[in-house]
């Protein structure tokens, strides 16, 4: 996850605080579309479909595709530190 914007991890942490039942890597990877060897690519391929199907989540009012919010959560779990500007 090197090089990713730490802001994404912040958003992912917020998602997990609102959806604590998904706040572990195994659950998130299971919910993300296959292949999950790269959760970013997996999420990218399904975002439009999520929106079209109404498979969306709300994070502090932001209406996000479920897969993009979960991808952010994966980033957060891979970047446990916050506020250091690195990920």
């Amino acid at each position, binding site marked *: 996850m090197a090089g990713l914007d730490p*802001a*994404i991890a*912040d*958003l992912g942490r917020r998602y997990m605080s609102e959806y604590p039942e998904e706040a572990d890597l195994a659950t998130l990877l299971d919910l993300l579309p296959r292949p999950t060897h790269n959760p970013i690519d997996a999420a990218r391929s399904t975002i439009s479909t999520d929106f079209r199907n*109404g498979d*969306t989540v709300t994070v502090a*009012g932001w209406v*996000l595709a479920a897969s993009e919010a979960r*991808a952010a959560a994966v980033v957060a779990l891979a970047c446990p530190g916050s506020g250091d500007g690195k990920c």
Partner: protein
Amino acid sequence: MLIRANDLAEGAALHGDVCIIGAGAAGITLALELMGSGLDVLLLESGDIDPDPATQGIYAGESVGQPLAVLDGLVELDEIRLRYLGGTTNHWAGYCRPLQPVDFQERDNLDISGWPIEHREMIPYWDRAAIWCRITDAEFSPEVWSERSGLQLPPIDDGIVSTTTFQISFPMPFGVVYRHDLTDATDTRVVLGANVVNIRNNAKQVTGLDIRTLSGRSLTVDAQMFVVATGGIENARLLLASTNADPNGIGNSNDLVGRHFTEHLQVYAGFGIFEPPLEDLIGFHGSDVTIESGRHSGEVHGIKYGLSLTSDHVMESPTTGLEAQFLLGHLPHGVPAQPGGPTMAEVTALYDLLGGNGPASTSAYIQVLAEQRLNPDSRVTLSDTKDPFGMPRTRLEWQYTQDDRDSVLSGLRTIAESVGAAGFGRLQIVPGGVHADAVDHLVDGELLSLYRSMPDQADPTGFPIGMGFHHMCTTRMAHDPSEGVVDSDCRVHGMDNLWMSGSSVFATGGVATPTYSIVALAIRLADHLKEVFTPSA
């Protein structure tokens, strides 16, 4: 010609073929359309050419329902309408957009819906209304306007959400723009300072009007045909207060006059980020076009896009109409600041990584106008207090329901999902949690934080709702007198020679701003009056 009631002799009796009460958008359009038809027209206006506090104060009354909210404050009944030549067009924002097909249809998901006329019947009148409203024409197709103006359209075409075009005629005070027409007409007398205090009738016909001036003069009016065109609240008040034949007022045997008072629900709804750069979204911000031909050739009006739920979606879903406008700015860095939650910059980072074809560069502030369900308990009645003429003042009980709030939330979410699916951007829904005066905070093209409450605190059962100053449906149109006050010709059920004009006759409110359709319906009524007029022997 313009005359002042105070210049006429005490007790003077005025005669005309048609008497129109109220010189706002509806009344002035009617008068303009009847000019040269052979009919002698009297147009009565309570105020003068300019506003004065005493006349405006006649509009004061009680509001006992939902708060009359606008922007971040509350307003009174004598602020939401204007009582002088041109009426409420004197503060009209000029937004023109026709009612939509779904507005005219019976809808299974609503208790009360449908008009007794069809959408297609209105089209020729919207064509003519474009002239009086001083816009280019009755073309509202976003594709056509994109071609005409070169303004780029958003890539949203899913049958659920579509681009909406507004033509904006501002300022457009009818009393100023058409004053010379009214002054020069030889077959139209505009009587200023003429307050109708009673519509005399025998429960079948209007037999005359009793007029008073603020200085105490009394006049009467006699005509073959009468039209009440005093606005969505005052139209009901005048019928209710005219009790010489029936203590319940005129046309009120089914207790419908004043009921179904409907507004457009205005919600300051949240924020958004958009992928297209600001310069490619200028259509949402607004642009100017010049009228190329006709009466107003050379005049400039605005053109602007919004997003709205399609008629098909509203028809098929348990929701009501909704449209969203966007105030756009360059994406600010790290704002809106939102303690404890993702900032706009964080969502943008995610969007850039996952969502779009390029970085999101534009921020948006979202303002929503939503349809209100017809509610018989939302109503205009008469107050126990009296105006200077001894007429009961207005008592307004505006009522909307949780169903209306739910439709705002679901409609916003639908628009957010369509925007997301199109790869156009992301929306944040914070109903009522943003300040209404965003336009004052667009600093150097950057939209700064305007949260009035955090998204977590937004209350789906109590978020603030404002009004659009659109007062509708209080004498709604219906074939059946048990469902409405006027028939499809806008004639009061049971009355031979009394018609209503203005948004009070709307059978449903829809979501389109009403003035353009008020003008179209006035043109339609003018044609009808010409048709049914019987020259006296």
